[in-house]
């Protein structure tokens, strides 16, 4: 599979990894991908395609779910990290924002953000970064004293991203940031995230079901299905390819689903494409 996209050296490269849960269940087969330094890469695919598993294999969260990277390697700036525990991965510069936000409900918004800086022991720097997070997410300022369980879903998503930012990552893994949010909010969050990418130099790997918006902000995209990467290419190419949109991303030219007969027909054609 070609992984070149002409930009700078990759900050992250996932090389042909295989992931097995509980020693028997094979969930990822030969997944390879690359995130260039300072780039935004989208990982697309339907529910259960293996996007979250891929992100967890990178961040090391996989092992708490009894999953294991059995083949291949994950490298951050050329150094293998797939044997490290999550704390070490965070310290080296990769933070995952988990699907479903996962804020600490009983801690206040500000405390949530401060916990994000746990791996960095200096307190003064954390305070300074708090202001930085507040400039990116002004909505959180007025909520700083609230328990995180009581703020809205959109604000929780912002908080989760802000909390990850407090660790000062080189690369942020975003798992379904659009989940369960109104389109307006999704737009707002993606705009903030891409500002983070431009202004703070945070590289991004985002797993999304919402391909339209993900491809609008990403430069490069990978499409997953059943634990494999079936396609990759420039965001522009992917979003313009009618077939890809039809088969993998559930989008049609006129924005409607086709009948099952058409789907069956396409499924057959798909094999030729991939």
């Amino acid at each position, binding site marked *: 599979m070609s992984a070149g996209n002409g930009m700078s050296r990759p900050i992250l490269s996932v090389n042909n990894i295989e992931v097995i849960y509980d020693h028997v269940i094979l969930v990822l087969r030969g997944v390879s991908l690359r995130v260039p330094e300072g780039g935004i890469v989208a990982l697309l695919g339907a529910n259960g395609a293996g996007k979250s598993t891929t992100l967890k294999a990178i*961040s090391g*969260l996989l092992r*708490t*779910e009894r999953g294991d990277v059995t083949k291949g390697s994950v490298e951050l700036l050329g150094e293998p990290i797939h044997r490290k*525990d*999550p*704390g070490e*991965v*965070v*310290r080296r510069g990769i*933070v*995952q*924002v*988990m699907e479903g936000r*996962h*804020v*600490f*409900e*009983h*801690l206040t918004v500000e*405390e*949530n953000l*401060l*916990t*994000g800086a*746990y*791996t960095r*022991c200096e*307190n003064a720097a954390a305070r300074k970064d708090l202001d930085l997070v507040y400039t990116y997410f002004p909505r959180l300022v007025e909520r700083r004293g609230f*328990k995180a*369980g*009581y703020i809205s*879903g959109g604000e929780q998503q912002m908080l989760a991203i802000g*909390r*990850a930012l*407090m*660790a000062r990552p080189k690369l942020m893994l975003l798992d379904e940031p659009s989940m369960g949010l109104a389109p307006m909010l999704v737009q707002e969050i993606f705009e903030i995230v891409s500002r983070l990418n431009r202004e703070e130099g945070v590289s991004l790997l985002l797993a999304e079901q919402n391909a339209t918006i993900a491809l609008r902000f990403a430069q490069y995209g990978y499409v997953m299905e059943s634990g494999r990467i079936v396609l990759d290419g420039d965001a522009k190419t992917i979003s313009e390819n009618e077939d890809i949109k039809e088969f993998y991303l559930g989008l049609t030219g006129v924005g409607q689903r086709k009948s099952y007969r058409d789907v069956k027909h396409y499924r057959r054609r798909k094999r030729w494409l991939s």
Partner: protein
Amino acid sequence: MTEILYGVFVGPFRDMAGSPAFLVEVLLGGVATGLMYSLVALGFVLIFKASGVFNFAQGVMVLFAALTLVGLMERGVPVAVALVMTMAVMVGLAFLIERVVLRPLVNQEAIILFMATIGLNFFLEGFGEMVWGANVKKLDVGIPDRSFIVAGVQINQLEMSAAATAAVLVAILAVFFQRTRIGRALRAVADDHEAALSIGIPLKTIWLIVWSVAGLVAIVAGIMWGAKSGVQFSLSLVALKALPVLILGGFTSVPGAIVGGLIVGVGEKLGEVYWGPLVGGAIENWFAYVIALVFLLFRPQGLFGERIIERV
């Protein structure tokens, strides 16, 4: 009929007003016992708060700590050295528990962890008995169990020292949880293990810390209860009295454990002394559970417990 009403609503208060010094004495006794309940409840709260595990073995940890201390002292180790060694044993125990029990059960249901602590309970009980023997031991920590009289009120020195120790311990823990980086991380882990991991909080270290702290609290509780009623296996049953305290104060609140303990302690002493005679005494033994029952009906999260946040 009027006699009963008088006995319940008027008589006790007339007695209280009649002899204020005695009332103060009863209240002080209640506060002292209450704080000792709080000490045991605190151990539960710490572990529940930081790992969401209801540690069934907390009562036995109190016993085990006291047994270790007494056992060492019986073998001629000086008090201070024995205390340090007991602390080391409790921290070692925390390390073992994290290694053998908690780590393999990461991300399992709370009920599974709870059952693991039941196993731990039996293990510690048997192990303690095997190492230190099963007979009742006397614990003498150097604070004399004698009383003196201040302004007509009898004050027990041992009880007051226990109360003061408990108060200091609680103040330290409250600051630790609310203000420090580690304390914040502990609360974060309590809320969501996985999210805590995802931002790089090492669960191993955090669990080691809480179980160690709970072990240290168990030592203090063990010393206080041991000095009061001897070190014996019924000591692990004070954990039963800690349950109503937890229900009152809330499972996740350090101040709640204290206030809950005070309410239970003072409530049962007052009940025993003033209302006890109405039913022939022995209110002390069940009064706490009645309060707990009332709380379960009307305020299940307790006085200071965290509200269960549900979103739709």
